[in-house]
C-alpha cells in the first residue's frame, strides 16, 4: 500500500511538470497551428539562462531566475514568433514542423557547445526535506512542484476565461478572421500565447532542473511526453493538458513497477495510439468537427 502511494505521489509530482510543458504545447497549437517539436528544448533552456546568471554574472538565485524568465520571454517567445513562426505560417504546418525540429537541434547543440556537455547541478528553490506519510516518502519539493503547477495552470485558465484579454486570445484561436473583424488585435494575441508558453516553460525548467540536473539533452524525453500528455488529455482544453500530464506521470511509474521496467516507455505510447484511434479529441477535449 505504501508502495502504491509512493508511486502515485512520485507520478503526480513528475506529471505536474509534464503538464506545464503540455499546456504550452497545446496553447501554441491552438493559437497558431504550430506543432512545436522543440517544446522539450524550450523547457531545457531557461535553466541554463539561470545558470549563466549565477555562474557567469554572479547574481543571486532569485535575480538569476528573473533574468532567465526575461531571456526566455524574449528568445522563446518574441524572437521565436517573429523570426520563425510568422514568416512560415502562410506556407502550411509542415515547413514549420521542420523548422522547429531544427530549432530544437540548434538549441541543444548550442547549450552543449557554449555551456558544457556534462550535467550541471541546479539549485533547488524548495527545501528538500522529506516527510513520511503512511510509508511513502514525500519531499516538500514534490508537493511544492505540484502546487506551483496547479496554480500556474489554474491561473492561466482563469486568465483565459475571466479576463478580456484572455477571451480575446480564445477568440483569435477559434476564428481569427472574425476576431479581427470584431477589433481584436490577433497578432498581439498570438504574441501573448507565445509569451505565456515561454513563461510556462521557464517555470517547468526551474522546477525540474534540481531533480533532473541541467543537461542539454533533457529536452528529448520531455518533448515527447509533452506531446503525449497534450494529445491524451485533450488538444483543445487546457485542463486536458493538466490531466494528461498527471496521468502520464502516474502511468509511467505504475507500469515501471507493475508491468515491466523494460517496456515502461511503451505504456504511454500505447495509450497515445489508443486515444488517437478511439477518441481523437483526448480525454477532456471537445470533439472538433471536420472542417470541409
Amino acid at each position, binding site marked *: 500500500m505504501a508502495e502504491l502511494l509512493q508511486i502515485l505521489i512520485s507520478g503526480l509530482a513528475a506529471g505536474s511538470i509534464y503538464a506545464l510543458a503540455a499546456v504550452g504545447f497545446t496553447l501554441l497549437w491552438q493559437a497558431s497551428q504550430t*506543432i512545436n517539436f522543440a517544446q522539450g528544448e524550450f523547457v531545457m533552456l531557461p535553466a541554463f539562462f539561470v545558470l549563466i546568471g549565477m555562474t557567469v554574472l554572479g547574481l543571486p538565485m532569485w535575480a538569476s531566475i528573473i533574468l532567465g524568465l526575461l531571456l526566455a520571454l524574449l528568445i522563446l517567445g518574441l524572437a521565436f514568433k517573429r523570426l520563425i513562426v510568422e514568416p*512560415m505560417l502562410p506556407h502550411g504546418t509542415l515547413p514549420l514542423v521542420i*523548422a522547429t*525540429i531544427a530549432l530544437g*537541434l540548434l538549441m541543444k*547543440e548550442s547549450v552543449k*557547445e557554449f555551456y558544457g556537455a556534462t550535467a550541471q547541478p541546479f539549485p533547488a528553490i524548495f527545501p528538500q526535506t522529506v516527510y513520511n506519510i503512511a510509508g511513502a516518502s514525500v519531499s516538500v519539493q514534490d508537493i511544492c512542484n505540484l502546487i506551483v503547477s496547479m496554480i500556474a495552470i489554474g491561473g492561466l485558465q482563469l486568465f483565459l476565461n475571466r479576463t478580456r484579454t484572455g477571451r480575446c486570445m480564445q477568440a483569435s484561436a477559434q476564428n481569427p478572421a472574425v476576431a479581427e473583424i470584431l477589433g481584436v488585435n490577433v497578432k498581439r494575441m498570438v504574441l501573448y500565447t507565445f509569451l505565456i508558453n515561454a513563461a510556462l516553460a521557464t517555470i517547468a525548467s526551474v522546477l525540474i532542473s534540481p531533480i533532473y540536473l541541467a543537461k542539454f539533452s533533457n529536452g528529448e524525453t520531455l518533448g515527447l511526453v509533452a506531446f503525449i500528455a497534450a494529445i491524451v488529455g485533450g488538444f483543445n482544453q487546457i485542463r486536458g493538458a493538466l490531466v494528461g500530464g498527471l496521468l502520464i506521470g502516474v502511468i509511467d511509474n505504475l507500469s515501471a513497477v507493475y508491468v515491466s521496467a523494460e*517496456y515502461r516507455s511503451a505504456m504511454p505510447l500505447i495509450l497515445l*495510439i489508443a486515444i488517437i*484511434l478511439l477518441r481523437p479529441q483526448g480525454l477532456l477535449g471537445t470533439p472538433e468537427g471536420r472542417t470541409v
Partner: protein
Amino acid sequence: MTRYQPVLLALGVAALVVAPLGQGNYIIYTLCSWLLFSIAAMGLNLTLGYAGQVSLAQAAFMGIGAYITALMTLNGIHWSLAAIVSIGTSFLVGLALGYPALRVQHHFLAFVTLAFNTLLFLVLRNEEEITGGSFGLVGMPRPSFFGVATDGNLPFYYFSLVCFLLSAGVLWWILRSPWGRAFKALRENPIRAESLGLKIRRQTLLAFAIGSAFGGLAGALQAPLVQFIEPGSFALIHSLKLLLMVVVGGSGLFFGPMLGAAVVILLPELLRFTEGYYLIIYAALVIVLMVYSPNGLIGLGLKLYEKFKPRREERRDLKQGVQL
C-alpha cells in the same frame, strides 16, 4: 526543358556510375549510404509529398527491413529473397498501421507513427533472443549475384546503384500511372478528388504502404552495407532525419529526396572543419532555408529559375478571359 530531360537523366546516371572510381573507402561508403537513404526518402516523399500524409515511422520500416534481412542472411538465405520478404513485410505493416490511423486528421497520423517508431525501437531492444537486443546483430554477409561478390566497397556501390535506379524507376512509373495522378489530385484538393470518385482512404493507405515498402528496401540494403545493426539506428531521431531530407530537398518533387539526402549526409562532412559548431550551423541553415523556401532546395532552385526565365507577356485584354 522536356527535350533535355532524357539527356540530363543519362548524364546523371553516368555521373553516378563514375562517382566512386578512384575514391577512398570512406567516400564510397558515404555514397552507398546516400543511395540507400535516398531510397527511403523517396518512399517518404511518396507518402508525404505526393499524398500529403506526415509519417514519422520511416526509420521503423527501415528497421523492419534491416532486421529481417539480417536474420535471414545470417541464416544462409540469399539477400534477394530476404529483400523481397523485407519489402513485403514493410508493405503489410504499413497497411496494418495505416488502416486505423488514416481515419483521423493528418497531424494525428504523425503522432501515431511517432509512437509506432518508438514502440518498435523498444521491441527491438528488449527482445534479445531474436534481435540481439542492445548488442545488435553483426556480420551480415554481403550478397553475391551470379558469381559476382559484392564484398568490396566498389562492387557493393554498383549493387546499391542498381537498386536505387530500380526504385527510382518504379517510383517514376507509379507517379506516371493513374495511381500517381490520383495521389497528386489528393494532395492538391482532396475534396474535389473525392467528388470525382477517388476513394481517399484507399489511395492514402496505398501511398503510405508503398512508401513504407521503400523504407523496407532501404533497410534491406543497410544490413549488408554496415554489416552491423542495432536498435538505436532506427530510433525516432532517424525518422525525423528522413523527414528533414524530404522537406529540405523539396517535398512533392521527384528529385527532392535525393538532393535532401545528399544535403543531410554530406553537409556535416563539408562543415566538419568547424568542429564542434557544425550541427549548430547546420540547424541554423535548415531554419533559414525553411523560412525562405518552404519548398526546399529544389523549390529554391525553381524560384530562382523563374526569376531569370524570360517571362511570357500576357495580352492584357485577355487577362480576364474572353468576355462574350
